[in-house]
Each structure stands twice: as C-alpha cells, then as structure tokens.
C-alpha cells in the first residue's frame, strides 16, 4: 500500500527525522491560509500516488500571497491519470546539498538493504542505470538492526558532506521507521543539507507491506479507495487477487501462475486481456459466480476466458458457479472455458448443452476467445 508524501513525512517525524513544517490543503483558500500562517516562501506539492509529480507541474514554489493561485492550478490537475485532490503546503528549505537515502527489501541478499547516494533530488533508478557506483549499498542484519557506526561508514563511503553524526542519525531513524511500520520501501529524496547545515527530509516516500497491515490498523485506515479502480475495490472485498488491465478479454483462473500464463496465451493469440483474476485455491461455486459477475460487469470486457486446472479446486464447483452466472443472465458476452484436473469429467457433463465454448487445451481456448472478441489486434 502506497502512502502520500505527507503521511510518509508524519511517520518519519514520529521516528525523529526532521521534516519541513507543512500542512495539507484541499482547496486554494486553505493553501493560502496555511502559507500566510507560515509567513514565508512555501512549496506546494500535489499529493497523488504516482512518481514524476515535479515534471508534471505538480510541485511549485510560492510566496504566501501567491499560494492561492498556485494551489488552484495544481488542485484538479491530472497526473498520469490521477486527479490531484489535495496538496501539501510546506515551508520551503534553502538547499545547499541534495542526497538520497532509501531502504528496500532485496530479494537476492534476502535483507533490508540501505542505499545512500550523493546524487539526490533525481530519479534514483536513473542513477542506478547511468552511474551505479554513485549508490552505496548496505544489507542490514535483521537481528541487529542498523547500527550508528554502520550508518556513519555508509555516509563516508557515499561521500556525503555535512555533519556525519546527524546524517547517520537520520539514516538510522529512517531504518527504524521502515521496521516500525513494516514498510516494503522507504526513501528520503532529497535528503537536504541546508545553507545553515541543518539536515531535513525534503521529500519522502513509503510503501507499506500489505501482509503486515494487520499489525498497523491505524495505517490500514489510510488506504484511499478513490485512487484505485472501482472493480479492484470490489474484487478486494471478495478477496480476489485482481488487476485491471487495458484489453477486452476477461480472464479468470485458479492460481496466480496459471492466470499469468493465461494472460500470456491471450497475448500470444493476438488479444489483450482486460484483467487478471485469481479465484484462489479450493474455490466453491459461489466464489466462482462472484468472479464471473465481477468480470462481466467490466464494460471493457467483450468475452471471458475461464481457465481451470482442478487441484484442490474442483472443476465441477467451478462449472456450477459459471452456470449460475449464465442462468441469472449476468453475462452478456461469449464465455470460453477450459477445464482439466480434479472433477474434470463431472464439470464437462454439467457444462454440456450450456451456452459456453469448452476447449480441452488452453492455447486453443485463447485463440477462440480472441477470435470471438474481434480477432487479433
């Protein structure tokens, strides 16, 4: 789950990281009031769950008397398909140096890895591509945590200039935040050294581990459903793993691997999937019925491909759910099915004479549904 910059900064501040004073505004007047309260130059920043806000014009400096106009331009702006509904109004900082400090979960080392770079204020992935030696990495021992001397060593090796103790403090506090909130990513970019020598997190990003949200009910509440696709919200209420995609073939299957493979087959046949939907293991008829109903509701869907390999999931339970959806008339588009595995024969006899197209082989089924939705694109 992604957090907004202002939320990430709040969490960092709770762990001792200095952040610029700031408040959130939902209207231009509110932004002006906040800026006047601060009584000095502010930065007004769009709060949307997407990178590249600056390039899109969603981050602007303003004097207090300009804040209303500047905020008015940013609010309502569309950034990569997301409408800006709130802005962070923060005191502007005098930047002497811009650094990068971040933590990720690294699969190769199976550790939380600290990354520090002198090249801050820019896209770190770009730095990783063009100048990888500018990023110093340190895998943290999960049982010892990040110690101050380790952070000092990384600060030195990365060539950061400024008060080494204070820089190391911020890095240790960033690690403590990461572990404290069960993050999957936490970064301060830029980590600013001001003209006065103060160290401050001018921008921050935190993603939370969805698997650990149960430990953080206060953070789980921050989920913003308006930022997600309505079908993704409905799917999550049913407990489905669902991803909205931009094609027209609805895809349903059991098991993430099989569903991914089914998307690949649709693409191979020249089609474009409209979604990823995994009904999970051991799904009963009702679950399948809900899945079909959900996918059929998507106006982009011109045909549905249901790919089932029965294991713990019984193919006949799947068939019953599909038949119920067909009989209730919730499906107005062609349905292609492929069933194999546990209770395959029972499923086939249930499906006999029903208005679906049954194929023994996944690739053949993919080709068929692509033809039905109007052929390869």
């Amino acid at each position, binding site marked *: 789950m992604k957090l907004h910059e202002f939320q990430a900064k709040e969490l960092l501040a709770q762990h001792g990281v200095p952040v610029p004073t700031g408040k959130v505004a939902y209207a231009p007047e509110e932004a002006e009031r906040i800026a006047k309260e601060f009584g000095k130059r502010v930065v007004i920043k769009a709060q949307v769950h997407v990178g590249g806000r600056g390039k899109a014009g969603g981050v602007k400096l303003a004097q207090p008397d300009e804040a209303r106009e500047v905020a008015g331009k940013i609010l309502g702006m569309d950034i990569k398909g997301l409408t800006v509904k709130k802005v962070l109004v923060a005191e502007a900082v005098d930047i002497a140096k811009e650094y990068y400090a971040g933590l990720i979960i690294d699969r190769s080392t199976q550790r939380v890895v600290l990354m520090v770079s002198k090249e801050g204020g820019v896209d770190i992935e770009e730095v990783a591509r063009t100048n990888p030696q500018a990023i110093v990495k340190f895998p943290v021992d999960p049982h010892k945590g990040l110690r101050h001397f380790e952070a000092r060593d990384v600060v030195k090796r990365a060539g950061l200039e400024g008060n080494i103790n204070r820089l190391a403090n911020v890095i240790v506090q960033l690690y403590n935040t990461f572990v404290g909130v069960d993050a999957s990513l936490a970064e301060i970019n830029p980590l600013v050294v001001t003209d006065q020598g103060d160290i401050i997190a001018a921008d921050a990003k935190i993603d939370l581990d969805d698997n650990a949200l149960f430990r953080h009910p206060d953070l789980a509440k921050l989920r913003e459903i308006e930022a997600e696709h309505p079908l993704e919200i409905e799917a999550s209420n049913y407990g489905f793993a669902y991803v909205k995609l931009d094609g027209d073939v609805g895809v349903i299957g059991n098991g993430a691997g*099989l569903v991914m493979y089914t998307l690949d087959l649709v693409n191979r046949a020249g089609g474009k999937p409209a979604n990823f939907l995994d009904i999970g293991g051991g799904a009963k008829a009702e679950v399948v019925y809900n899945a079909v109903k959900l996918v059929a509701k998507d106006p982009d869907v011109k045909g549905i491909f249901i790919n089932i390999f029965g*294991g713990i999931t019984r193919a006949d339970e799947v068939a019953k759910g599909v038949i119920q959806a067909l009989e209730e008339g919730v499906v107005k588009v062609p349905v292609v099915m492929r069933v194999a595995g546990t209770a395959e024969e029972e499923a086939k006899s249930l499906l006999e004479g029903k208005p679906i197209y049954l194929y023994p082989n996944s690739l053949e089924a993919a080709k068929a549904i692509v033809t039905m939705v109007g052929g390869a694109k």
Partner: protein
Amino acid sequence: MSILINKETRVLVQGITGREGRFHTEQMQAYGTKVVAGVTPGKGGRDALGVPVYDTVKEAVADHEVDASIIFVPAAAAADAALEAAYAGVQLVVLITEGIPTLDMVAAVKEIKDLGVRLIGGNCPGLISAEEAKLGIMPGHVFKKGRVGLISRSGTLTYEAAAALSESGLGTTTTVGIGGDPIIGTTFKDLLPLFKDDPDTDAVVVIGEIGGSDEEEAAAWIKENMEKPVVGFIGGRSAPKGKRMGHAGAIIMGDVGTPESKLKAFAEANIPVADTIDEIVELVRKQLK
C-alpha cells in the same frame, strides 16, 4: 530415488487441528506420507487423524523421530512456527502459509539458514516425490513416477506441468513449489545441486515467473555446473510493469524482474524455454534424446 523426501520421511504437522491443516493431513496420509505427530499450542494431549497432538514442537520431537515439518498456521504466527521447528532440530521445514509479513520472513530465513535447516516457502504448495510422499497441498494424482525433477514458483502451473509430464510417460521424481513470495527459504539454485546428484532425475524443469532475479541466478549456476538437461518456462511474460500479479513476488520493478532479462539469462546458459505448458514436454523429450 528422489530428493528431500521419500516414503520413509517422518512428518510433523504444525497447525494440524485447523481447517487447512486437518484437510491436508488427511490428503497427505492418503498419499502414503508418514505423518507421526501434530502440534497445536493449547491442544496438546489430544489425538488428531490418528496421531498425537502436542503443544510444542520440542515435546513432539522428544516422543517421535521427526525428519520434516509442514506448517499450516495463520500468517501472523507462521514465521514463529518455522523458527520453533528449526530450533527443535527439525531439518526440513515446509511453510505453506500465505500472506506472511515480509520482515518476519527476512528475520526468520536468516536465522533458520544459520541453524543449517532447510526451509521451503512460505506461500508455497510444498513438495512431492511421486508415488512416495507428499509434504504439501498439491493434488497427488497428477504426479506419476518418472525421470524429471520439477521446481516452480507457482502452484497450479506446477500441477499442469506435472500432469503433462505424467501423461507423456516422462513422469516426475520430486517436484518442489518454492513459493511466490519475495523472501523465501529455498530458491531455484539451492535445489539444482540436489537434482544434479539424484541418480533418478534425468532432466529438470524450472518454472519461473516475472519478478526478482532467481531465474537469472539459477541460469548462471546451470551454465557452470549442470550437465543434466534443463528446460525453462517463464510465466507472466505479458504482465505490465509495476503491477503485482497475484503473487507478492510477481512484480516488475524498474529493470529488475523483466521477462526479457530472464529469457536472456536462459538463452546464455543454453536452456531452452517453453512458450506453453505442452511445449515443456516436447523440449524435455528433445533434450533427453
């Protein structure tokens, strides 16, 4: 022969009295797996499915010889259960549970490895040595004894591949579902040496998917060390960047985890890659000629 488990393997089930634990214990017993005891804290002293239940793993291993443990406890307690088994001296721990907090796994995987214990999973279907023993949740009937070792990040796709291999007459030796999470106990390259040394395994199929770089690391190991033929498969080749495709680990981040990178690594190691499940069988046949 097989790797890791066979019909002699004595198995402990942690979470045996829960719905999932009970169901899959019955299935494992029906397959021929030697389940010797179960553990559910607070339910010690009872019997479940014909075996005694203990409060702790320590008590269970005091009364029984245990070679492996399989874990069906809820996500919040799963990493702790794996550590409990490892500290009690169980040498093979299979963690089925899905949705375990990642930092729990980061801490547990390191500690379990330091103890010299093999952990498979979490969020995995487990492992099966065809017609011998099953420590997992896969449908046993699709696995026919044969010559191919199978390692996979996916569950259902593994069953598909196993069914195709069984139907073709090639069959499988041991199949290991390593799990779909970012931090897992055992990766492809940890298992390849075991298959290399198993006299009954003539070829290995590696079913990978987008996300991470386990496939690349496996390919590099194969290039240097493996004489037996290997066939690859990559799921999610058409998936968009930055979207999590069901598995927590199946996500392309920046340039890491792309299908292009994995296909390139396989090509460099001369590993043929199947585009469809049916093609896996054809390629294995061709390699074995």
